[in-house]
């Protein structure tokens, strides 16, 4: 039975988790199977018990951590699946799109036969590693004296004394042996330093048939010095063999060995592929998070941006890579050009006079074309594309918006007629409505998509032109449906209130077409016309509604009660430092702070400050006392004033609210009484 990624219930094979710094190593009973993961994915590994689906695991991680590293989780599941770490891995069926996204990096030109997933040494010795690598480096540097100043002349001279077939064969043998020796040395280095070497295979590639050892264990290197020594030695180790063989081997073998080494060294400095040179630069210039990325996981951009030093280092790394890449490309083009000039005519000649050994020039030509293709592709894909990408986006966006504008003009007329009957727009002239629609965006939402997310900053007002929407609100961990709205109506009106976050979620119940109106533009049009008053009334209604729906105290009130309070209350505007009421006044109403803030004073001493969303004046109502404190506005403020009678009418219908308000009142009263006693005592003392 196959299941999709979301419904797949992963069950890990028996194994153990070994924490190491900020990483964990998961090892199954078979020590050949091992995987390194960032520690923040430990929960994923520990939840893979077969009891929870991937969807449930993600939900659990979200509830616990407040954030989900989706990309890393998917990659981890993919790699665990590929590596056969899941007992029930056969059940998982990856969506082809996901599969291609995750496998994109591993495409390369080779065939391989893996015969060892992991080699383990009984002990490891960093000191021996250090000495062996240092000796190899010194000898390799000595071998670099044989580095050809004119490699093409050397190749030309050597080819002059060889038949094409034997030349090709010797070159292939030399490159295969050099690569095998290089990888053998790599395995020794890794075993000495970490005690482990992964993915040992025989590989058939353009370099011949050779031994290949994966560099995954290099992630376990704990010192930057060791990492640097490792990569440098991997670039130049071929010259070690040249130095050792030069006095002994005949010139018929030395020349192809030098040429093969020249090509390998040149390729290992290529920053456009996953070469040793690039890894060396990464180890020197990037932070530790990026070292983890060298294995499987890219640290998310968000996390990287939190670490400014690392971000700066990565920028430097990118700049350095670009400079290096340009130099390498220039070198490559010189090589391509010189080889075309030197070998082009003879190669074409042998192609025209086709004979039994013509396959060698064909192979040479093919390699030459492949190299040229790689140079052009690297140049276009990495340098030109990166340079053009921002400009291309601008061109693309403009062209798209132009086409959309053409289609929308006809639709706009219909929308104008649809919205003119709405109360908010009824006072606008037709040309103003046309302006509003023209400067707004018509957006189509498929069924079940979220149009507005609760808590987001509100900047646009929406008019539902077609379809139905559902308004929901987060209540703890659940979503509570408030109402369903049909076309033509307004939603997202909280945008009319400055600095106000969205109070609810809006979800498309059917396919929805909505007009997204930028609020600053709407206000500008309203100010130009006589509709400001209308807009202001609308805003006030929203303010009051929003107060009741967002206040933790009043949220539980029924819709009827809120409507009742709204109908009985009045809006009151106060300037800065204006007294709302004085201590000792008789209290006949309660105040809700819609905008602004107030200072509460007892006997002239500031007790507290209350701001938007809070309320005051309830003590006098509940305890039937005169005002226990003086309330002064701190800034220009708007209050919603509800009379005592109306307030009690609601309280008797909502006993819970009444009890709660009474408790809060008691506390406040106690605090005020304490304050007044303290002040009196201080006064009498003085």
């Amino acid at each position, binding site marked *: 039975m196959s299941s999709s990624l979301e419904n797949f219930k992963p*069950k*890990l*094979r*028996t*194994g*153990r*988790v*070994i*924490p*190491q*710094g*900020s990483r*964990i190593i*998961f090892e199954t009973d078979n020590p050949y199977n091992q995987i390194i993961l*960032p*520690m*923040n994915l*430990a*929960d994923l*590994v*520990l*939840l*893979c*018990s*077969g*009891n929870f689906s991937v969807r449930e695991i993600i939900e659990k991680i979200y509830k*616990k*951590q407040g*954030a989900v*590293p989706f990309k890393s989780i998917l990659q981890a599941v993919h790699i665990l699946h590929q590596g056969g770490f899941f007992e029930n891995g056969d059940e998982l069926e990856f969506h082809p799109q996901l599969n291609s996204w995750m496998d994109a990096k591993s495409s390369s030109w080779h065939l391989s036969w893996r015969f060892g997933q992991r080699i383990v040494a009984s002990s490891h010795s960093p000191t021996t590693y250090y000495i062996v690598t240092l000796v190899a480096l010194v000898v390799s540097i000595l071998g670099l004296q044989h580095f050809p100043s004119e490699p093409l002349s050397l190749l030309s001279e050597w080819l002059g004394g060889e038949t094409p077939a034997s030349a090709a064969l010797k070159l292939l043998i030399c490159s295969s042996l050099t690569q095998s020796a290089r990888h053998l040395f790599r395995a020794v280095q890794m075993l000495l330093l970490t005690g482990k070497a992964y993915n040992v295979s025989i590989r058939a590639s353009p370099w011949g048939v050779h031994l290949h050892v994966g560099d995954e264990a290099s992630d376990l290197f*704990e*010192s*930057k010095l060791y990492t640097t020594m490792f990569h440098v030695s991997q670039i130049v180790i071929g010259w070690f063999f040249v130095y050792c063989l030069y006095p002994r081997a005949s010139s018929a073998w030395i020349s192809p060995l030098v040429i093969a080494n020249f090509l390998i060294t040149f390729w290992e400095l290529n920053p456009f592929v996953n070469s040793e040179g690039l890894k060396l630069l990464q180890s020197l210039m990037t*932070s*530790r*998070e990026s070292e983890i990325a060298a294995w499987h996981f890219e*640290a998310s951009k968000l*996390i990287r941006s*939190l*670490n400014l030093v*690392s971000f700066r280092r990565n920028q430097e790394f990118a700049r350095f890579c670009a400079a290096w890449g340009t130099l390498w490309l220039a070198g490559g083009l010189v090589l391509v050009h010189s080889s075309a000039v030197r070998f082009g005519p003879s190669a074409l000649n042998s192609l025209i006079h086709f004979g039994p050994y013509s396959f060698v020039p064909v192979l040479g030509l093919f390699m030459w074309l492949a190299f040229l293709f790689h140079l052009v592709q690297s140049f276009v894909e990495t340098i030109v594309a990166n340079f053009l990408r921002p400009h291309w986006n601008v061109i693309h966006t403009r062209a798209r918006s132009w086409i959309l504008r053409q289609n929308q003009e006809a639709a706009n007329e219909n929308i104008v007629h649809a919205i003119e009957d709405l109360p908010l727009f009824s006072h606008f002239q037709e040309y103003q409505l046309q302006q509003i629609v023209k400067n707004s965006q018509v957006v189509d939402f498929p069924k079940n998509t979220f149009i507005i997310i609760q808590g987001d900053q509100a900047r646009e007002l929406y008019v539902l032109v077609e379809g139905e929407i559902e308004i929901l609100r987060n209540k703890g961990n659940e979503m509570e449906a408030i109402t369903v709205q049909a076309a033509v109506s307004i939603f997202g009106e909280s945008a009319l209130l400055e600095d106000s976050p969205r109070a609810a979620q809006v979800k498309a119940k059917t396919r929805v077409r909505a007009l997204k109106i930028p609020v600053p533009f709407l206000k500008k049009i309203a100010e130009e016309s006589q509709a400001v008053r209308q807009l202001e009334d609308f805003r006030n209604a929203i303010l009051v509604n929003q107060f009741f729906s967002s206040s*933790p*105290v009043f949220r539980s009130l029924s819709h009827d009660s809120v409507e009742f309070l709204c109908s009985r209350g009045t809006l009151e505007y106060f300037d800065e430092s204006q007294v709302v009421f004085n201590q000792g006044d008789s209290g006949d109403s309660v105040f809700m702070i819609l905008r602004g803030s107030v200072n509460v004073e007892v006997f002239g*001493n*500031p*007790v*507290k*400050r*209350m*701001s938007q*969303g*809070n309320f005051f004046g309830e003590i006098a109502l509940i305890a039937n006392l005169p005002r226990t404190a003086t309330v002064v506005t701190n800034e220009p403020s708007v209050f919603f004033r509800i009379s005592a009678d109306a307030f009690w009418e609601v309280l008797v219908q909502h006993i819970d609210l009444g009890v*709660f308000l009474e*408790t*809060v009142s008691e*506390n406040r009263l106690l605090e005020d009484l304490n*304050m007044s006693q*303290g002040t009196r005592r*201080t006064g009498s003392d003085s």
Partner: protein
Amino acid sequence: MFWRKRKPQEIPPLQTLVQLASRLGVERRVNVRIRYPACILSKLPEVFFADTKLKIVDISVGGCCLLDPSEVLGPQVGNEIQMNIHWPTGLERVNARIVSRVEHRRHIQFLNLSRSRQNFLTKAMTPGVRAQRVHRHNLPINDAVEIEALEMWSSALGDSVTIENGVHRIAQVQLQNEVFHIFRDAWPQKLPSGKCSKADFEQIILFLCNIPLPSRALEKLRATIEQVWSQG
């Protein structure tokens, strides 16, 4: 049985009311605060009032919470006081207000803390702030997966704590890309250099001290490293 004394009705503790009140907007703290470790760290300030050193419970750039069992600050909420704050770079006299009091605790708001001191404090607080993102990883649900550690704690920022049960090494801490090994009775070790400076050690203490909802093992680890610190 009816003759048995009835269990007294449970009265909600004051804390619940405070929590409810804070939902109403009474809680207005805007700055991130960090807990003070039990031991003295050189980068964090000390607070004196009238030559009496007051123990700091937590601190932020906006204020701090002080322990005042002998009531040197007085009981008055709303009072403005002048405090001497000893920074590593020198003494500063700061105007402050007592915002609230809970038993012996006084919540103090700094009124004129200079911008440079705020920046200094923000920098010194960094390990503590980062620690607040750290959470503990679950123990394995099935017996099939075994963890070679007592507990694992990590954050999305890459910081982590692994509590081990070794004879000598008791934990590994990764903080701001640096890895430290914590030992039972010895000065921590920094990888790969092996040298853990005093400043690094202070950062580890502050980091561990601010990890939320600590387990018993983490509390024990804190106590151990604070002991190593005090022994020098």
